[in-house]
């Protein structure tokens, strides 16, 4: 494993660096506002004195790089400042919502990952068959549909016409696990539909790529039965691309929650983000963006590290 640690270390550093640059962008973008936050809050009609007073109160008089480091330092410790809209601590609002979002994304992942890998492998093994074509067409349609379309279709059929699930997923902290699971099911299925389609197509492509390699042909030529070719030769080597596919799609999942949360009025980070964008509540928007970006980068990092770990050539360098 000696050769692989520096590689992973390099990746981690690169990911940390990317996160730093992203945080600069997120902070700097707000600095680019015409005027500044104080001007934005008070509007055009505010007098010069009130704007100056608010500027003093928010500490906007100091140079931006000092405020950036203060903001970053606070963010690392879980302090994202105070919301402009209701003067409450951003972290306080964000905490339970982030847990909700993770629960939703996790549930969607639990549904979609086994389904997608199973279907993808099957589609690759029986490629160009009826099953493959139907799976391809269905996944294409579900990728092409906006998330809110799928969500509302599910609401119409599973919540309004047949009252199986609730149309609005209002979870509260004091709910027990089963109740929470029941209320989160529809949004989770919606997200799982999209992600399963992506993951299935990518798994299928990865496996087909693999089955075309010479050692598979060799195994077939020496007379190994088909099932054994798959289990002994193909699947162990398919691990790397599949880990990659899963991690990339989980990264997509965590950011794809925004639309689904709005459709189902689910109290997660995505909905908070959209509300704050409409209210132009900058500290909350910055915090949400940083959280989403960090999760996104983290999963991309996992994909990279997974690819390194599952590649024997990198694990045992010559």
């Amino acid at each position, binding site marked *: 494993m000696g050769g692989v640690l520096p590689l992973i270390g390099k990746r981690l550093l690169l990911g940390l660096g990317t996160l730093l640059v*992203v945080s600069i962008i997120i902070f700097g973008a707000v600095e680019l*506002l015409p005027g500044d936050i104080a001007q934005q809050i008070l509007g055009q009609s505010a007098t010069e004195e009130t704007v100056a007073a608010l500027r003093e109160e928010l500490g906007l008089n100091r140079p931006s790089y000092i405020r950036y480091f203060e903001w970053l330092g606070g963010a690392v410790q879980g302090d994202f400042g105070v919301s402009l809209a209701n003067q409450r601590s951003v972290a306080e609002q964000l905490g339970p919502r982030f847990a909700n979002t993770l629960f939703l994304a996790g549930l969607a992942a639990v549904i979609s990952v086994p389904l997608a890998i199973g279907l993808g492998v099957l589609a690759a093994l029986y490629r160009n068959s009826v099953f493959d074509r139907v799976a391809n067409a269905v996944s294409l349609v579900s990728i092409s549909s906006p998330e809110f379309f799928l969500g509302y279709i599910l609401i119409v059929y599973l919540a309004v016409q047949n009252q199986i699930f609730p149309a609005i997923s209002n979870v509260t902290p004091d709910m027990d696990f089963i109740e929470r699971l029941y209320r989160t099911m529809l949004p989770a299925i919606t997200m799982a539909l999209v992600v399963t389609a992506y993951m299935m197509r990518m798994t299928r492509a990865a496996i087909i790529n693999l089955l075309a390699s010479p050692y598979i042909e060799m195994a077939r030529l020496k007379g190994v039965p088909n099932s054994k070719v798959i289990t002994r030769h193909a699947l162990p080597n398919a691990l790397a691309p599949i880990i990659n596919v899963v991690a990339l799609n989980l990264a997509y999942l965590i950011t794809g929650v*925004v639309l689904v949360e709005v459709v189902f009025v689910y109290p997660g980070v995505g909905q908070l983000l959209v509300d704050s964008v409409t209210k132009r509540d900058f500290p909350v*928007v910055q915090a949400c963006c940083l959280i989403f970006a960090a999760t996104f980068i983290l999963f991309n990092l996992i994909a990279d590290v997974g690819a390194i770990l599952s590649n024997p050539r990198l694990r045992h360098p010559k």
Partner: protein
Amino acid sequence: MISFVIIYYAFLILACCVAAYYKYRTALLILFTLLCVSLISGLLGGADVLVNITIFVALLAAAAGLSYSFRESLIQVLPPEGAKLMRTAPLTAAFGLLVIIAYIIAAVFAPVIAPFGEAEVVGSSFAPPDDVMLLGGDQLGRDLFSRLIYGARNTVGIALLTTAIAFIVGTLAGLVAASMGGWVDQVLGRIVDTLMAIPQLIFALLLLTIVGTSVINLILVIALLYSPLIFRLARAVAGNIVVMDYIEAARLRGESTWYLITQEVLANITAPLAAEFGLRFCFVFLAISALSFLGLGIQPPTADWGSMVRENATLISFGATTPLIPAAAIALLTVAVNFVVDWMLHISSGLKE
């Protein structure tokens, strides 16, 4: 209802037997799966589910028949070269073409087709469908059908414009990076890496908070966020071209970088770029619809499919499906473009089944 169920199953079983007798393996498999699915869902959901399945299958068959006749008539009408191309087209591609043409007609002739104006209040709010308003009214009593037609013009037009801007910026930057190399390539590459490190929808929300929501801002923000992907492709395919001998020859002739980019490189990468344009259009279209749905994209009273879904979403909780139609219009166009892009990729890769 009972006679419908009996006829439904009798027909399916008969079709299965016919397929089995004539050894149509694929047809038998599909029919038998359909039979099993209908048995289970019929037991669970009653006869209504069977009616829905029948409608769905009939729609599929109608679409297939329509695209078949469309393809065959195109083969007859087009000049020999086009006819040859169409003959190789799968049914899905013909269907995609048909849908795209229908959307273009709707967009161009919107004022002629739509019975009412885009923002014209016709009846009461949420009026049920009747002879005057084909799909009923929306939350302000405007005609949903007319707004749907105008939406083709607004939503698709804005998405096309955005994709075009993203494409021009991305391709130009990619070609410059590929043909100049060195530090220009490095700097552009790093900028693109950072832009792509933030998820696009989140980044779009951040930027729209800052610049405010308007159509121009929307177009510029989305174009900025989607150009890195095009940059990457353009850079990659152009990278293969710039090492060719004829580029070397052109350099030695003393041609300018601009000449190299436009005359030598661009001419050789049009096929992958055209397919990429279709794919990117789908993503941009979905992103703009998503933002409009969130109320941050195209602003009222402009008719737009994303915001139409949002405005009429309350109807859905009463079991009405009309608010789903604009969303279905988005999905249909994306599927159609994907079908055509698949076919184009197939042609340009030179694969033969």
